[in-house]
């Protein structure tokens, strides 16, 4: 299958997505914000619709919408006087409502939209690959540099603030990283399922890991294997890649749960 150009592109993007999504999701899950990725995915849906309406790249507009949504969630959570889940609900539903109105306005309730919602292996272009490599590289570098600060906030947000850490900036950084991940991953996983790839590998990894570092390492490994195996199964089974990848990630949770007693013994 790798002799096909579109499969090579899908695999190249898949490697970046498989590593980046769980790495960003790690900080969301540990801070009990597992659903932020989902909220940003719905905002990205509005972005795709806006791209259709304006006649420009839906990936670009989705990325912009997701970043704005990330700032909105973080702002509402920290200064807007709303609880985390309420902030998420506001952004989440506004996103999907705006999306459906814009899509209908653009008269694009069609198969093309379906590919953005649930992913497709056929649609990755060379230009997409460069964007994914650039943004993915920047995001992974940012995680490496910010790792210690982000972990400190995960362990004790209040204490980190007292210790003089820029907690607001670090929280915003996580939200923006989540938005970038949504934008990068939407081509192959789809905007409705990308959040699952951010969260499920981390939850599975937690069942087997003994430290934060091992959770992160295991989660990225599970994410990478899920994406590459999912693309392969999708290719041979003629299945939508997003759904296949997420089902494999969910299966990893079952496997981890079964293996857990063995590790303790």
């Amino acid at each position, binding site marked *: 299958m790798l002799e096909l150009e579109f499969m090579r592109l899908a695999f190249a993007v898949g490697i970046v997505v498989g590593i980046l999504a769980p790495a960003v999701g790690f900080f969301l899950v540990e801070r009990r914000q597992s659903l932020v990725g989902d909220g940003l995915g719905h905002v990205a849906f509005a972005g795709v619709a806006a791209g259709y309406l304006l006649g420009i790249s839906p990936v670009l507009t989705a990325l912009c919408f997701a970043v704005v949504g990330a700032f909105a969630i973080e702002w509402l959570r920290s200064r807007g006087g709303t609880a985390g889940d309420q902030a998420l609900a506001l952004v989440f539903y506004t996103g999907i409502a705006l999306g459906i109105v814009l899509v209908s306005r653009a008269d694009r309730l069609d198969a093309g939209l379906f590919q953005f919602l649930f992913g497709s292996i056929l649609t990755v272009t060379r230009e997409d690959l460069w964007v994914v490599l650039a943004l993915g590289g920047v995001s992974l570098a940012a995680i490496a540099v910010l790792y*210690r600060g*982000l972990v*400190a906030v*995960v*362990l004790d947000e209040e204490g*980190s603030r007292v*210790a003089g850490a820029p907690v607001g900036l*670090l929280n915003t950084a996580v939200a923006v990283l989540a938005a970038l991940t949504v934008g990068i991953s939407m081509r192959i996983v789809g905007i409705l399922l990308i959040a699952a790839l951010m969260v499920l590998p981390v939850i599975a990894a*937690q069942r087997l890991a003994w430290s934060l*570092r091992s959770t992160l390492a295991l989660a990225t490994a599970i994410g990478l294997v899920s994406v590459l195996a999912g693309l392969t199964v999708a290719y041979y089974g003629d299945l939508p890649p997003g759904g296949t990848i997420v089902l494999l990630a969910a299966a990893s949770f079952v496997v981890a749960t079964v293996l857990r007693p063995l590790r303790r013994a």
Partner: protein
Amino acid sequence: MSQRAQLASATPVTVREVVEAGRLTVRGPLGPLRTDDREAVNRAIGRVGLAERAGAPLRTLSGGMQQRAFIARALAAEPALLALDEPTTGVDAASQESLAALLAELRSELGVTILYVSHEFGAVEHVVSRLVLVRGRIAFDGDPADLPALWHDPPTHTPSALSRVVTPETNPGTPSSRAGGTAPPRSGAWRDKEAGREAADRQT
């Protein structure tokens, strides 16, 4: 610094990772820790007697040991003042004894000042160098040895009982409690801003 795990119980984190977070004050949030940071982390872990459990997940440790891990996190920043708010809540008697021994050791070996705020000071009483009892105002301020003997009687040895005994306007009290009322500061040197807490014992 919080002295309790605020994490979801599913979060796997080792003692070392918790203590490393304490270096944030010194090193800032960017980039990896350096050699001297790692040495400070190792010293702090060894100081609280958790060297052999440094790589163990926090959730596998007892409550007393988890508390030591959080004290190590504070020590990793090499502080001049360690402030502990109700550190014995939910910790068994044996762990309270070893906590008192640890605090005495930190004071004598590191010269760190410890501000210990609690409703009960039984376990640390013999290592306290200055005791301040507060209920609305300072009810006692001085060496715990000078505390009136009445306060050590079991029936009155509760915070509320203490307060009643030492606060004339809320309780006319017995002649003995009046006699044992507010102990005057031994010297002007005892005056300081930190005294305005609920009940504060201070070791210097």
